[in-house]
């Protein structure tokens, strides 16, 4: 169960907004986390408390393939991202590194900055404690659910390579 404060962003948040190019050569998630969202909100990284939740509109994570974007969100202490929809490469990247994403347009629209949220990933439920509303997220396709259960892509491939030899 994830419980934290919502940090609300708009539509089409791109990867240059999530992690500025001057930081993309970093590889330690905590270091990356210090620059998370810096182009859009310089105080963001300092404001986030571990377990907080990032909430956004349509097409979150559009633009570059830089995997440091989801790494920086994780590194900043964000426990999951709720959005109306996600850009394709960002979606894969986040699933691969086990940053939970929740596709839930109603919850994303109803949530305001600073609301207290509770997310039950297993049941796909988003509860807005501030507004006392509950939302149901879209379930993952079976294939992706198995990938998540395997612990992300690294573990999935590890297992494949191990059983091959």
């Amino acid at each position, binding site marked *: 169960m994830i419980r934290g404060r919502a940090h609300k962003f708009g539509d*089409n948040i*791109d990867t*240059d*907004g999530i992690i*500025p*190019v*001057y930081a*993309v*050569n*970093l*590889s330690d998630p905590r270091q990356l986390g210090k620059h998370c969202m810096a*182009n*859009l909100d310089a105080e963001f990284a300092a404001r986030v408390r571990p377990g907080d939740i990032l909430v956004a509109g*349509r*097409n979150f994570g*559009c*633009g*570059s*393939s*830089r*995997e*440091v974007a*989801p*790494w920086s969100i994780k590194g900043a202490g964000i426990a999951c991202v709720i959005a109306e*929809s996600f*850009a*394709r*490469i960002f979606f*894969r*990247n986040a699933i*691969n*590194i086990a940053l939970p994403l929740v596709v839930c347009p109603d919850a994303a629209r109803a949530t305001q900055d600073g609301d207290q949220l509770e997310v039950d990933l297993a049941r796909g439920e988003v509860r807005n404690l501030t507004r006392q509303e509950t939302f149901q997220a879209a379930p993952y*396709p079976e*294939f992706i659910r198995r*990938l998540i259960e395997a612990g*992300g*892509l*690294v573990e*999935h*491939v*590890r297992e*494949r*390579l*191990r059983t091959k030899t």
Partner: protein
Amino acid sequence: MTLAEKILAAHAGCESVEPGQFLQVRVDMVMTTDATGLISVRQFRKMGARRVFDPRKVVLVMDHFTPCRNIESAEVVKELRGFAAEQGVRWYDVGRAGICHVLLPQEGLVLPGEVVVGGDSHTCTYGALGAFATGMGSTDIAAAMATGDVWMQVPVSLRFNYHGRLRPWVTGKDLMLHTIAAIGVDGATYAAMEFGGEVVAGLDMDGRFSMANMAIEAGGKAGLFEVDQQTLEYVKPRAGRPLTVPAPDPDAAYAQVHDLEVSDLEPQVALPHSPANAVAVGEAGQVEIDQAVIGSCTNGRLADLRLAARVLEGRKVHPRVRCIVVPGSQEVYLQAVREGLMESFVQAGAVVTPPTCGPCPGGHLGVLAEGERCVSSTNRNFIGRMGSPGAEVYLANPAVAAASAVSGVICHPGEVVKP
């Protein structure tokens, strides 16, 4: 089946596939760069992989921050150089490289009908050759290097047919900016864009690369062109291996078909801060600029430099403006020297950089300060893309960028080059 479905089916060992289906797809080439490659190498090791699946099918291109911009980027390239040597994979470094998406087609590393995955979102560029090419993150690329395949969900296909006859100074870049403005930055999310119609049949390969390159700016997974005589003339001398020519079936099912009449289309300018903010150049208003960039994986090819040189030859860059020309590869650079294009640029007061991604992602060689405005033949104008989050980027074709460099304000090339 559509072009995308045909290629994916062939690489998954299926007779036919349908949108939404999950496949394990065999890849013909895996590409990564100094921007995202290091995490791939680390994930590759974490996966317990020892050798890449096939060293001839893995290519590392040092292009984003090279020649290295600082100690961090030098350390990244050093580690990747070690990995490339250890694995015996294809390796392109300073002096032999270029921007990956200019380089791979030029080197014959991508052919029609192939599947390519790259650790860069503009990998979709190779769709111009009738290949299924898509960008992925570092961990996916690590998995592809280790196993030679990737998981994919078959995308729906969207067909775009362009009709009419292009006006002077209108290029593939303008068609694409116009298309993105029409469908939005998420108009093709999870979808394969397929381009056709008599207008794109008449585009040269460089114009097609520009278009396929920007499929990602509409959220597209891939952007594909049908293979024609021109494609074959481009790839055959470079291929060095057998190739198949895929084609969509006449009864292929498209989720959307867009027929666009483009005879009246003017050169486009995408206003800050979205590639979907495209308007005709005449509607951009009075925009004074500080910098003009001509280059990138979108517009750093020979046809682009020729177009810019036609505008800059015998003219001077406006005293307030820095004009930066970035040839896309060593081959493009050399040919531009031979044709005298470089002389036109230098005489005009433009600077020519080495082949690199350079200013496009705000890496180096032309980073913007707060309050500065840049007209750029690149692909993204997001907040902070080329430097300060307080700078503005206007996207346009190379002729518009060159003409604006001369006049100091964003303008139609016809205002600078009088017939």
